[in-house]
């Protein structure tokens, strides 16, 4: 029972965390692009767009950063035996993630949140660049840890725990880099959809003086969707070819050779992800080619507002393929998930599971209300930070 509840709890908390992660790691790259244009050309419209999308980034970042701690805590509370067995290998990427990435993003995020209005052009660009570097590096290191669980290279199992042999191999694990690029591209794609949806809302219902700005934002959103939706299947294909060599049981699930209930979920998820990938590609091409029609058509704009769930569904489906396809292994081919769980009373796990569901329910409503409220306010006269808010 402890195992089932702990799995449920980890799945739930990481899924909740992952509502914010792809949105923020993608959106900050788009903000960086705006900020870079403002730095180079000094055009006010890019500063306004950067400030606007930064506000949406910051709300979601506030929820994303703190819900990430839930995973670190659970490695110790619920997955203690996994942590003991894996500590020698798993610990160092987590340390590197904290001291290389977390410090950077958090230190500069505080500046961007509270003192944006007091920054020069150069310092604005530096701050956003540091946050972007922090979020990107953070993804690299956590996927390094996760990549090892899928394709354990650079370490061996001595019967009771993993023993590190070559850290270089862990860092250069091909699985990690396929996964990182694939994940990051899908996060950027999702942010493209969010930018396009927000712009569509403003073209349809927003303030008249904001419309030109959101036409620009929509253009950026569309191009981002087009570029990432071309790259995703190209790289996804070689990712799949690589999986053939390292995770044969996952490939059996995807192709239908394995017909267990879990495998069917993996296979369906895979088809949902790939199907949506092609929808995104078609959508990207259509919207780029017929952009003028989109700008003048309230019908298209109305539909585009409701497209945001699609990239989320694709991301969740892809994730189910990756992580369910790994089962029953917690470290592929070496340690089963059931062996990793802590020796903890089941009543305590019930306590944490029930309270965290309630707590996260409240947080979700808060984030939703705040994000929508900020989106609808549109472009504000002030610089951001907390002045005149």
């Amino acid at each position, binding site marked *: 029972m402890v195992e089932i509840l702990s799995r449920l709890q980890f799945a739930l908390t990481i899924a909740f965390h992952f509502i914010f992660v792809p949105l923020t790691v993608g959106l900050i790259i788009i903000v960086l692009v705006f900020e870079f244009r403002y730095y180079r050309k000094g055009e006010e419209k890019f500063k306004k767009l950067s400030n606007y999308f930064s506000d949406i980034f910051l*709300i979601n970042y*506030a*929820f994303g*950063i*703190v819900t990430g*701690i*839930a995973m*670190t*805590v659970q*490695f*110790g*509370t619920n997955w*203690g035996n996994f*942590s*003991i067995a*894996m*500590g*020698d*290998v*798993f*610990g*160092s990427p*987590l*340390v*590197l993630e*904290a*001291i*290389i990435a*977390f*410090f950077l993003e*958090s*230190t500069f*995020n*505080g*500046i961007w*949140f*509270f*003192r944006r209005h007091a920054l020069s052009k150069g310092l604005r660009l530096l701050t956003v660049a540091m946050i972007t570097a922090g979020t990107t590096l953070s993804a690299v290191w956590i996927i390094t840890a996760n990549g090892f669980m899928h394709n354990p290279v650079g370490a061996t199992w001595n019967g009771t725990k993993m*023993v*590190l*042999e070559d*850290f270089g191999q862990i860092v250069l694990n091909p699985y990690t880099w396929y996964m990182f690029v694939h994940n990051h591209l899908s996060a950027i794609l999702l942010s493209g959809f969010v930018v396009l949806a927000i712009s569509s809302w403003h073209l349809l219902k927003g303030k008249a003086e904001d419309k030109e700005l959101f036409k620009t934002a929509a253009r950026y959103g569309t191009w981002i969707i087009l570029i990432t939706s071309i790259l995703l299947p190209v790289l996804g294909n070689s990712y799949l070819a690589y999986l053939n060599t390292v995770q044969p049981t996952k490939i059996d699930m995807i192709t239908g050779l394995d017909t267990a209930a879990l495998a069917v979920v993996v296979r369906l998820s895979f088809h949902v992800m790939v199907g949506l990938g092609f929808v995104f590609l078609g959508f990207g091409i259509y919207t780029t080619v017929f952009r003028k029609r989109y700008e003048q058509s309230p019908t298209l704009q109305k539909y585009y507002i409701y497209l945001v769930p699609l990239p989320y569904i694709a991301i969740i489906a892809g994730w189910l393929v990756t992580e369910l396809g790994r089962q029953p292994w917690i470290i592929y081919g070496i340690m089963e998930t059931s062996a990793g769980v*802590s*020796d*903890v009373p089941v009543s*305590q*796990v019930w*306590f*944490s599971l029930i*309270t*965290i569901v309630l*707590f996260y329910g409240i*947080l979700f409503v*808060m984030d939703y*209300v*705040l994000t929508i*409220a900020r989106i609808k306010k549109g472009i504000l006269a002030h610089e951001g930070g*907390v*002045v005149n*808010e």
Partner: protein
Amino acid sequence: MNSAFLGDALFVVIALSWTVYLVQEIFITGSSALNLTLAKDEGERKQIQVASGLHWDGIEVWLIAAIVLTFGAFPLAFATSFTVLYVVFFLLLYALITRGVVIETLYKLDNSRWIRANAIAWSVSSGLIVFLLGVYVTSLFYGLPIEADHSASGSVFALFNVTTIGGGLLFLSLALASGAAWIALTTEGALADNATALIKKYGIFLMPPVFLLLVFMGFNVLDNSIFIGVLFTAAPILFVLPALTFVTSLGVLYFGLKQQADRLFLFALLTMALFLVTGFVGTYPIVLPSRVDPAFGITIADAMTQVASARIIFIAVCFFYPLILFYQGWKYKRFAQKVKPHDA
């Protein structure tokens, strides 16, 4: 770099991370907890929000660093302490999440009920964070309820006893004292003028020396005092550390009563730092002491990761810690302007 050196070095690095974290966290949580009683209107509350909000998340990463460094360097100690203190860590997690969200979303909706509810949550979660950390850190020094097989002894509440609750209150009082001083030093106007006077009225300045003595007495913790560890036994000169800690806590009392915010701030931070140094010196070389029987404690050698991993972590720390201290120091300096009542 052999195993013994790396084990000691990483013990020092973890102690350093806790110290750098807590020395800063006390004035962030303290000023946040005070928002309910101190701020007379939303303008003043916003001043507190900016003064502490600018730095809180960069500071909280020091906590994450201390935790993941324990994971990386001493996996057994990490897994054991979190499993044994399952419920406590979830409560701490909820408090950390609440504080982190609320400090940034406080004024994101123009609705007085929203702001009121968030201000209460901000204050309560901040107080809870620093209290629970006090209980936890004091237990790290005096022993956790751990059996020989590293399983938990007793109930969920076995962590709480006179000494650890005293530690929690010590942290809370240092937080309120340094938090009030932080507000006095970083804001302007009526808020800054009233900050330290208010907590003087409630007698908060008396608490640090009193609770410090209570914790140092180790009441109720039997033969597991922090002063019988190998270092205190080998070098009695080290007793200067607890003595200095007590002197600095008297400094908190003195400058608190005299209402000198800058010295009050300095002495509160010094008390925190010296208390932690005393505690870590006392527990060395035990990473996770047991309160059930000192022999059940987990030592550096028991929990140590392999040399190859420890070396990577140590080198990364040597390279990145100075860099982090540099850019966080730059941030304090660059944004040191006082927060005015109407430009918060």
